């Protein structure tokens, strides 16, 4: 499909995400809902990858370019960060290590439980 048609499709799915998110009883970001909508449409084959291929590849490959502006805006936050920079780093670092360990542990445990239940099923037959 032509780039313009691909962009139109992505914009429409984005709009659908906002509409659905606004109907939910809890606050839910429209962009994340649109990601979910796109996923469901791809799963149900209502949208095929080739219909959005170039546009989605462009966005996925260059996403970093769109986050530069929010980082530059840190200039406005220097007052809030004053004297707190070290703590800010510490919280992020420690929390990341804990998250890694908790995730790895829970996946390991789940895989073990699944294997065990499969073995039990095998033994029962």
């Amino acid at each position, binding site marked *: 499909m032509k780039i313009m048609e691909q962009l139109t499709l*992505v*914009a429409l799915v*984005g709009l659908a*995400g906002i509409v659905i998110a606004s109907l939910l009883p*809890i606050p*839910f*970001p429209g*962009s*994340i809902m*649109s*990601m*979910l*909508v*796109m*996923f469901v449409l*791809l799963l149900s084959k209502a949208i095929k*990858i080739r219909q*959005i291929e170039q*546009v*989605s*590849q462009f*966005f*996925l490959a260059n*996403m*970093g*370019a*769109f*986050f*530069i*502006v929010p*980082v*530059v*805006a*840190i*200039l406005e*936050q220097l007052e*809030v*960060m004053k004297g*707190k920079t070290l*703590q*800010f780093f*510490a*919280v*992020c670092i420690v*929390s*990341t*290590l*804990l*998250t*890694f*360990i*908790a*995730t*790895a*542990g*829970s*996946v*390991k445990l*789940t*895989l073990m439980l699944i294997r065990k239940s499969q073995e039990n099923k095998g033994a029962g037959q």
Partner: protein
Amino acid sequence: MNTIVNSPMFGIALTFLAYEFGILVTRKVRSPLLNPMVIAAALCIGFLQLTGIPLASYQVGGDFLIMLIFPATTCIAVSVYSKIDLLKRHFVPIVVGCTVGAATSIGSVILLAKWLGLPEILTVSMAPKSVTTAIAIEISALLQGQPSLTVMAVMITGITGVLSAPILIKLFRITDPIIQGVALGTSSHVIGTAKALELGQTQGAMGGISIFITGLATVGVVALAF
């Protein structure tokens, strides 16, 4: 001069130029501490400080680029869809791992920040730090955080994940590629997934899937926690 710097083209041109330069640098010097976005942001900040051009002028064009984060987020679905077979095969462990990871990340940020006496604005800005930037910014906005602080936290998280993963993998003897991939993707999003890809194809794919699931799980945990 004012008409030039207050035109949207100023912010857009400066940002893209800095990003291209960042890509050039990271092609020459490969390091987890360097990524095109960090280099570009440093360049833009330096340029504005040197010239004395106000941030508000830069943001005229900058705001246009920020709007594009939305469709970019929509397109994350495409990267997950291309790994749908792996997601189906390991659905339960992935969902459990990502949910536990999302809860640990947010829970530990709240507790650590409270313990260190950090103000609310920093806590809520850091809370979504383990998910990919596009999703983190949205969650931060939902909690009335500051997007720029959130992006900083996301970057620190990614770099921490990349640097610590080899040590943690050795320390806890994590040999299963599925566990390695989910742990990296969940704890340190895209940057962690790039590292997972270095460990192997399966690890990279699992990392990519985990970014998506952790993003959704984080929205859920945030809805419950705040």
